[in-house]
């Protein structure tokens, strides 16, 4: 009996998905000592104590069983009440689904909506999960470029140029990881027009909605005619510093949420019950702590943006999320080379922009969800490194 090459065992769809570009940097940085990391895509706060304490209390009372597939009804209600702040109106009994992190919601939405032959439009640079999830759902991915000159906002023209008769879903991620770009209500209205004209469905990942600076987040689902063709995806991870709890949610039209619920009940059954209890506490009593964390990101945002501009790397002020996305093109290096040399020579870890999409080339993603002291130390090391390049 002969055993074929290992890859023959694998599904060709999975086999064709390239390994994560971030993973390579993680492995590299992980072997080194004294690394200052600006490469982390999660808050530097531990979950606020009142939320952890509520979860402990839930455990003490025995909240350790499955919940309904959709999620705890109280949590669904808390989610819809919370979404009202963003002018989004959903029925907690039919239009909301609690998921295992926002990630599961993205996967479910794509699986519920697309099949082979469908095209999924993904504006980039953007978060790395949408493409593989779309491919796993059997769809074809179409990259829609966003450009530095537009501050990485998606324009209707760029979108229109990529739409074909097979286009089915548009995935938005604003505030954006990695660029920190946001879309205003006017920006979104232009996109909504294209979506309606071409009958596109929108999956809007609004996980960073709370992290906007100087403006209130606008959701495309709040625009006329968009609620029925949009799934809003979000979660507790970023706003409430709850990444490890894995609690996210989706809100949208009943038929799509029901289809997602069908997949969810067979694959995950339900989101963790103690996490759901923690999420309930966060959404009902977490505003003060959340505001404190957002104010702290805002201060550090100014620090990091100033630092990059002073050392000669142009860095637009990001309007959302917790990433700065400085332009390194004037160093003459590629993002990958820059980041690798920076890591090896100065032990500062950042993420090359091209891992988030082709137009991210020439940029690096730097998270400012780290202490003021660490940001200052990292900036000093990067400045010295950049000085040597010129």
């Amino acid at each position, binding site marked *: 009996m002969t055993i074929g090459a290992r890859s023959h065992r694998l599904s060709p769809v999975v086999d064709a998905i390239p390994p994560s570009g*971030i993973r390579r940097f993680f492995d590299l940085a*992980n072997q080194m000592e004294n*690394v200052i990391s600006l*490469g*982390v895509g999660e808050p530097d706060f531990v979950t606020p104590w009142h939320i952890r304490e509520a979860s402990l209390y839930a455990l003490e009372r025995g909240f350790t069983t499955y919940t309904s597939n959709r999620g705890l009804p109280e949590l669904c209600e808390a989610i819809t009440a919370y979404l009202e702040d963003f002018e989004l109106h959903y029925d907690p009994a039919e239009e909301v689904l609690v998921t295992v992190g926002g990630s599961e919601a993205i996967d479910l939405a794509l699986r519920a909506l697309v099949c082979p032959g469908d095209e999924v439009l993904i504006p980039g640079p953007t978060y*790395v999960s949408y493409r593989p999830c779309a491919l796993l759902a059997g769809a074809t991915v179409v990259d829609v470029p966003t450009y530095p000159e537009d501050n990485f906002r998606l324009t209707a023209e760029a979108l229109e140029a990529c739409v074909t008769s097979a286009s089915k879903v548009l995935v938005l991620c604003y505030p954006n990881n990695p660029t920190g770009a946001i879309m205003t209500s006017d920006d979104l209205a232009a996109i909504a027009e294209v979506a309606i004209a071409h009958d596109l469905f929108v999956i809007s990942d609004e996980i960073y909605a709370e992290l906007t600076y100087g403006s209130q987040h606008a959701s495309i689902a709040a625009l006329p005619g968009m609620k029925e063709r949009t799934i809003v995806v979000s979660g507790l991870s970023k706003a409430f510093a709850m990444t490890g709890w894995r609690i996210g949610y989706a809100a949208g039209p009943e038929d799509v949420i029901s289809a997602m619920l069908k997949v969810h009940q067979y694959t995950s059954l339900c989101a963790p019950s103690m996490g759901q209890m923690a999420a309930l506490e966060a959404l009902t009593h977490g505003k003060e702590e959340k505001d404190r964390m957002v104010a702290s990101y805002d*201060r550090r945002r100014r*620090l990091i943006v100033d630092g990059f501009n002073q050392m000669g790397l142009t860095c637009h002020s990001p309007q959302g999320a917790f990433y700065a996305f400085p332009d390194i093109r004037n160093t003459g290096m590629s993002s990958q080379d820059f980041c690798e040399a920076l890591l090896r020579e100065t032990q500062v*870890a950042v993420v090359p922009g091209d891992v988030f999409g082709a137009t991210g080339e020439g940029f690096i993603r730097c998270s400012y969800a780290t202490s003021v002291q660490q940001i200052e130390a990292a900036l000093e090391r990067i400045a010295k490194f950049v000085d040597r390049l010129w």
Partner: protein
Amino acid sequence: MKDVKELELLRLLAMDSRLSTQTLATLVGTSQEEVEQAVRELEQKHVILRYSTVIDWEKVATPRVTAVIEVKVIPQREVGFDAIAERIYRFPEVRSVFLMSGGNDLQVTVEGSDLQAISRFVSEKLATIENVHSTTTHFMLKKYKEAGVIFDDHEDDRRLVVAP
């Protein structure tokens, strides 16, 4: 400087008074000169009183004993509690004095080199002050948190070095 920024400046300084004026300026979104001027004014107005350090004295080999003393006093005509409070807080071994609601009037924190030193202070100095009616002394056994700082905090950064 706008009140909001001034408050933010004070909060930042209360957490870390060693932040440079340049860093403070960037963090609150103003100029270095403006921060310097604001700090000067706040010092002159005695809003900022001192730049101090939170130290875990248990980790250095200096024996120190702290006691919290509840003091009942008979307030004096015209000056109320203030005159008695002053007679207490002028002693250098007294670290803090608060006027409290509830069953007692003043809460006094005293530091000394050992139990005897504190006992002596209470019996010879504090209890003998005119209008001090009674004292209840509680010795502090362990400090878990002070000035918002958790001693021996074990919540280190557990995040992965690089993550999407």
